[in-house]
C-alpha cells in the first residue's frame, strides 16, 4: 500500500523507481522476505526464509512448537529489536520494496504501520477508553472528538462496542479473556496500521470467543493485511488464504490454503496436517 512506501521512503529518502510500476501490479507482494537468516545469540532460529505475503490476504503460519513462527512474525515489525541477543545474519525483509532493517528506517514509525496482537491478551491497567486511544495519545493527539470517534470506530471494528459502550471508564482488566483480546485488536487498529500480525490470538479463548475473533478476521481482511500464527489446523483452514508451514526454523512449504490442506507438496506438511507428528 502506498502509505507504507511513502512514509518509509520519506524516512530513508530512497528512490525506488520500481515502486511506480509495481503499484499497478495488484499481485505484487506487500511483504517480501528473502534469504533470511536469524539467530538468538549463537542459536540460529530461522534458516534461509523466502516468502511473499500478499496484500489484503490472510496468511497463516503453522508448524510445531519452537519452529520459529513467532520469531518470524516478530521480525516483520522489528519487535525482535527489543531482544538484546537477536541478530539478523543474512537476507532482508522488504515492505513495499523498502528494507525495514535499513538503519535509516524508524522502527517506531514502522510499528505504527504494522500492528501486533499477542497470544496472551495484554490490555494495560487503564480504562477501556484509554486502552484504545493509547496509540493516539503517544502521538500527541488530544482532540476529544477525534479520540471519541476512534474509540467507537475501533471497538465496533473489533466487534466489542455493543458489549462495553456503557462502561468505557472501567478497567480493561475487568473484561473477560475474549473481550480483552478483542480490546487488544481494537487498540492495535486505533493506530491505523495496514498490517496486523496476530500471534495465536485465540489460544487462550473458548470456542465461542474464538469464533467471534475468526469472524472478525474475515471482516478485517477488507481493510488489513493479516498474518496469523496458529496451532489450530481448522482455524488456519477457516480463516486464511495462504498458509506457510515451518519446521525447525525452515519454511517447508507455502501455498494457497486449500492447496496446502488438500494436497500438500511435501511429505512433512502432509504428516503435520494429518496429525502424525508435531
Amino acid at each position, binding site marked *: 500500500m502506498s502509505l507504507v512506501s511513502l512514509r518509509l521512503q520519506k524516512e530513508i529518502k530512497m528512490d525506488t523507481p520500481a515502486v511506480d510500476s509495481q503499484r499497478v501490479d495488484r499481485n505484487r507482494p506487500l511483504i517480501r522476505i528473502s534469504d533470511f537468516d536469524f539467530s538468538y545469540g549463537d542459536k540460529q532460529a530461522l534458516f534461509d526464509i523466502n516468502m511473499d505475503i500478499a496484500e489484503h490476504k490472510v496468511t497463516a503460519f503453522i508448524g510445531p512448537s519452537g519452529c520459529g513462527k513467532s520469531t518470524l512474525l516478530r521480525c516483520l515489525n522489528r*519487535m525482535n529489536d527489543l531482544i538484546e541477543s537477536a541478530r539478523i545474519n543474512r537476507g532482508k525483509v522488504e515492505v513495499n520494496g523498502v528494507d525495514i532493517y535499513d538503519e535509516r528506517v524508524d522502527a*517506531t*514509525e514502522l510499528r505504527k504501520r504494522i500492528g501486533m496482537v499477542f497470544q496472551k491478551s495484554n490490555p*494495560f*491497567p487503564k480504562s477501556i477508553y484509554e486502552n484504545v486511544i493509547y*496509540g493516539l495519545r503517544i502521538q500527541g493527539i488530544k482532540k476529544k472528538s477525534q479520540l471519541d470517534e476512534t474509540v467507537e470506530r475501533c471497538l465496533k471494528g473489533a466487534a466489542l462496542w455493543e458489549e462495553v459502550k456503557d462502561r468505557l471508564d472501567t478497567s480493561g482488566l475487568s473484561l473477560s479473556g475474549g473481550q480483552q483480546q478483542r480490546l487488544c485488536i481494537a487498540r492495535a487498529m486505533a*493506530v491505523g496500521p495496514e498490517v496486523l500480525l496476530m500471534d495465536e490470538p485465540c489460544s487462550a479463548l473458548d470456542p465461542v470467543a474464538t469464533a467471534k475473533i475468526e469472524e472478525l478476521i474475515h471482516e478485517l481482511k477488507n481493510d488489513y493485511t493479516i498474518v496469523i500464527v496458529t496451532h489450530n489446523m481448522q482455524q488456519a483452514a477457516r480463516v486464511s488464504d495462504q498458509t506457510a508451514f515451518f519446521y525447525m526454523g525452515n519454511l517447508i512449504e507455502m501455498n494457497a490454503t486449500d492447496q496446502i490442506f488438500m494436497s500438500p507438496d511435501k511429505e512433512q506438511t502432509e504428516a503435520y496436517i494429518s496429525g502424525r507428528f508435531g
Partner: protein
Amino acid sequence: MDKRSFKSRYQLACNRKSFLGLTRESALKGLFGGNAFVSIVVLGLITLFLFKEGAGFFGQYRDSLLLYRQSGLEYVELMRGQQNALSALTRYLNSIRSRQVEKLAEEGYDFQESRAITEESEDFFYDFEDLAVPLREHVIEANEILSAARDSYQEMQNLSEHRKSLLESGRQDEADALEIREIDFALFFDIVKSRESEYIEINENLIRGIEEILPSVPYFGDAELQAKTERFKELAEMFIEEVSKFEENVLAWERARSVPISEAFTSFIFGKKWVTNSSIQDWYGLIPLMSGSFLVALVAMFFAVPLGIGAAIYVNQVARSLERDLIKPYIEFISAIPSVVIGFFGIAVFGTLIREVSGWESLAWIDFFPISERLNAFTAGGLLALMAIPTIFTLAEDALNNVPLSYKEASMAMGSTRLQTILRIIVPTALSGIISAVLLGFGRVIGETMVVLLCAGNRIEIPRFAEGIGVVFEPVHTMTGIIAQELGEVVHGSMHYRALFMVGLVLFLISLLINYFAQKIVMKFQISRG
C-alpha cells in the same frame, strides 16, 4: 496387590527416621516454625520493654515540672526571658562596635588612631550596658533564693529516701538521728514576691533610660554602620514595647497552679527545648530533635529519590545486560559499607568539601553562602542519601520488574518509543511499588544513627525554617543521635533515661507507621493488578 507388598509399604511409612519421637518432616517444620516464633516473641519483648521503660517518664516529668513551678523558679525564668532579650540587644550593639573597629583597621588606621575614633562613641555603649545591670542583679538574687530552697528540698527528699531504707533494714536509731526539715517553698517565694515592686521600678527606669539615651546613638557616617544603628534603634523600641508584656506575665504568674499529666505530655511532644543537666530546670522537648531528624531525612530524600528511582528505571528498562550486571551489584554494595565508615568520610572529606565549595567566589550570590559549620544537616543528609539509594533502588527495581513484559511489548508494538513506554506504562504500573520503595527508604534514613551522630553537627535547637533553604546548612541534632549520644551516660531509671526511651518509642512508632503505609500501598497494588 498381595499381602506382603502391602506390609512392606506400610513398614516403609513407619520406618522413617525419627529422632526424639520426631520425624524429619516435623522436625524441620518445628525448626522453621520455632524460628519464626522466637523472632516474634523477641520483637514483642522489645516493644514491651520500650513501653515499660518509657512509660514512667511522664510521671517523673510532671513531678519535675511541678517542683519547677512550686519552687518559683518558673517565675524567675519569666524575668530571665526579659533579661535575655535585653542581652541580645546589647550583643547587637557590641557587634556594631567590633564592626567599626574592623572597618577602621581595613582603612589602614593603626591601633592608636582607631582608639581615638572609637572613643567618641564609647560612652553610649557603656551607658547602654549599664542600663541592663539592675535587672540582671534582680534576677540573680531571686534565682539564688529560690534555687537554694529547691536544693535543700531535694536534699531533704534524698534524706527521707535514705531514712526509709534505713527503717526497712531495721536501723531505727540511725534513722531517728537524721534531721529532716520540711521545706516550705511559700516562705521563700514570698520573699521574692515581696520585691515585685522593685522589679516594676527597675522596668520603669529601664524604659526611661533607654528612651533617654536612644537619641544620642552615635553617628558613624559610614553607610553600613549607619544602617546597623538604625536597625538597633528599631530593635530597642520593639524591646520597650515588649517590656510591658514580660511584666504582665510575671505579675500574673501563680505559684499554686498544678501540673496535669497532660502538660507533661504536651511539653514532651511539642516542647521546643531539650536541655539536660541544667542547674535550673531540665527540659525534654521532642521538637528540636524531631525537626532535626526530618530535616536531615528530607535532604537525604531530595537526593536519594531521583537518583534511586532513576537508576532503577535505567537498569531495569534501558541498560544492556552487561551494564546491568555491573551497576546493580555496585549500588547494592553501597549498603554493605558500615555506616561509621560513611560518617568518617563525612567528617574527613564531605563536610570540609561542602564548606570549601560554599566559600567559592562564584557562589557568593547565594545568600546563605559561605556556610560556617562544616557538620550540618546537609552533610548528614547527603551521606544518608547514599545509604537510602540502595534501598530505594532495589525495591523500585523490583517493582519495575514486576510490570509484565507484555505491557512493554504491547506499547512498543503500537509504535511508542522506549521513553514513552517507560513514562506512560511502566512507571505508572509500578507506581505504588515505587512509592513504597521511597517510604521504606525514608524509614531507613530516619532510623539511621551513626552518620547523623557524626555528621549532623549535634546542636540541639530547632532549625530556623523561616530562613528558607539555607536552613539545611544548620547543625542539628536528631532523635537517633541523641539516644546514641546520651544513653550511655545517664543514670539508670532517671528521668533523662526515661526521656531517651520515649524518644526511642517515638522513633519506633514512626518506623511502624512508615512500614504500615508501605505495605498498605503494595497490597492495594497487588489487588488492583490481580
